[in-house]
């Protein structure tokens, strides 16, 4: 176990996978000579050369398209999207090509491509550099979507994404890059589709993922002061979803809050809440409460930015009202 930042954990994952498998290579804007805007690629070209760590033009459609082509023909490309918002410039390549080819072609091929997509709200980055878009891709059959919550997840999920034979989106929150945590030293791979129980309580379950896991843990500490014992589920993978872990949390606590930073309307939380309603109705002592960002673009002014997405006090408040039947 070593303590390192989220950014260093992704570097360790990349280094280990590139040493293990010569078909793994990286491409993206500003990654090789500059080391990535969050330092997440520093030192890789020195070890692996500029053929395996490629700086590219600002051509997202070509990067993702070429990633698909390379994945179809024997490589395991990792494509860095710079900011998750720019996946929009490569939507055909993600949605019509990567996601569908294996199915359409009757399983003749695999698409072992990883897209790294720094996302989320931080530092007044504004509407076009702040989005959390995972809901779109969960809705698209054929894509795996993983979202690390901490440095441990960052390493274990990135290694799993690279080893997966499927196209995998790896959404890494920009505000998490400098956050330190304990990370296993050895070949540490987190199985995709399995949630992690971060905290086991009996009164209410907070089901969440990504940066909101930390906020949910903060909320749990606040709830403790009120005598409320909360479970916190870190989904880690939002497709495939760990429906068993969600159902289990609902059965054990009878009250569920679902929280994420992405826009609430039409989001992953809607799928989870709907699943609990369909499959776990008899377990519930109250409605499933959903928290997510307001249905607005993320604004620039810090005071406005901070107003639009759920943080620990809002999560604690929702859980408290659910437990006290004050909804």
């Amino acid at each position: 176990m070593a303590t390192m930042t989220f950014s260093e954990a992704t570097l360790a994952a990349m280094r280990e996978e590139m040493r293990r498998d010569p078909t793994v290579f990286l491409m993206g804007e500003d990654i090789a000579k500059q080391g990535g805007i969050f330092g997440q690629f520093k030192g890789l070209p020195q070890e692996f050369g500029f053929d395996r760590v490629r700086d590219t033009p600002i051509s997202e459609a070509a990067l993702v398209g070429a990633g698909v082509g390379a994945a179809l023909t024997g490589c395991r490309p990792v494509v860095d999207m710079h900011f998750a918002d720019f996946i929009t410039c490569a939507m055909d390549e993600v949605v019509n090509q990567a996601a569908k080819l294996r199915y359409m072609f009757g399983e003749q091929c695999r698409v072992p491509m990883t897209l790294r997509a720094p996302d989320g709200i931080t530092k007044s980055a504004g509407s076009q550099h702040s989005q959390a878009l995972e809901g779109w891709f969960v809705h698209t059959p054929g894509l795996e979507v993983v979202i690390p919550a901490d440095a441990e997840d960052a390493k274990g999920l990135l290694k799993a994404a690279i080893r997966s034979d499927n196209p995998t989106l790896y959404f890494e929150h920009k505000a998490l890059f400098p956050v330190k945590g304990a990370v296993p030293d050895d070949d540490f791979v987190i199985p995709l589709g399995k949630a992690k129980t971060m905290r086991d309580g009996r009164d209410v379950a907070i089901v969440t993922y990504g940066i909101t896991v930390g906020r949910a843990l903060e909320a749990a500490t606040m709830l403790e002061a009120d005598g409320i014992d909360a479970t916190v589920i870190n989904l880690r993978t939002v497709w495939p979803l760990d429906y068993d872990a969600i159902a289990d949390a609902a059965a054990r606590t009878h009250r569920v809050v679902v929280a994420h930073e992405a826009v609430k309307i039409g989001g992953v939380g809607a799928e989870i809440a709907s699943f609990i309603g369909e499959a776990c109705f008899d377990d519930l002592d109250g409605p499933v409460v959903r928290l997510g960002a307001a249905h607005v673009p993320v604004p620039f002014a810090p005071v406005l930015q901070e107003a639009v997405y759920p943080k620990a006090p809002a999560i604690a408040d929702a859980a408290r009202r659910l437990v006290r039947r004050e909804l």
Partner: protein
Amino acid sequence: MLSAPARTELGVALLRTMIRIRVLEEGIEKHFLAGDIPGFAHLSIGQEAVAAGVCANLRADDAIASTHRGHGHTLAKGTSMRAMVAELFARATGVCRGKGGSMHIADFSVGMLGANGVVAGGFGLVAGAALSAVQRKTDQVAVCFFGDGATNRGPFHENLNLCAIWNLPAIFVLENNRYASTTSTAETMKIADVSIRAAGYGIPATIVDGFDAFAVYDALAAATARARSGGGPTFVECKTFRARGHYIGDPERYRRKGEADDVMQSDDPIVRMQAGLGDALSPDAFERLWNDARDEFADAVAFARNSPAPERDEAFFGVFSGDRDPADPVHRIEARERDALVPFAPQVGSGSQGSGH
């Protein structure tokens, strides 16, 4: 330079491929109109010289990416006619198990990375296959077939630039067939030679008579040699013509009646090759090529007709690698979705609920 007998042998091989494509596509047209083939089908009649001339230069481990109009490319790259026709007939024995159809036909066993339902969808796949060859240090090449219409989309420009700066073994084969879907090229761009766009990326381009399979073959021989030896990408513009509508059933309101007949009268690539071979190919041998192709197609149709439709459950598998494994979480999720779509079966003989409602 090939000797005269070798050149004749090559010409006959190109002619054989073109005739097989023509017979296949005329057959597809007939069976589509008869209702045997669902969906859409886009024919490349008139363009056979391009598919034949290009693919005759390629190895099975070289990659191609195709367009909506991909039957010719697929057959020329080496896919069996049986597997193609069964796919178009939506059978389980089809090359894509009946999940692709005409517009998404692919055959990875011969390096055919798929017909693409998205105009310009193949550029990224070819850039990636070429990049993959470099990363894996092989001498494979990758060829992108595309129409004039695709060059007005962004991926064309992004991928040409990417292949140029990285000197990738990619070959861009433009089938300039004068129409982008149902709009003439003259209305959608101000240039007659679309290949001048390659200069903007530092990629050398040649223009060839796309009705002349020898001309296409020679251009590709040069481009392939260049790509294999690390010389980088080449752009080949084939001036050709689409003798049918955009799709089978297209009323073709956008062009003059008789235009296709006029072009095929003077430029049918099969007639041109036969004439070019002259006395080197006897009328009997020519007739035999047609008869062999017709027999092959009849056999393929019989194979398709005798093949089963896919099992209903097949619809729920194949999205992810490993999803036929019951331990895979995706498998379990899909099984739930499948079960949810099956109506509740009547409980015959259970005796507890009367007639139900």
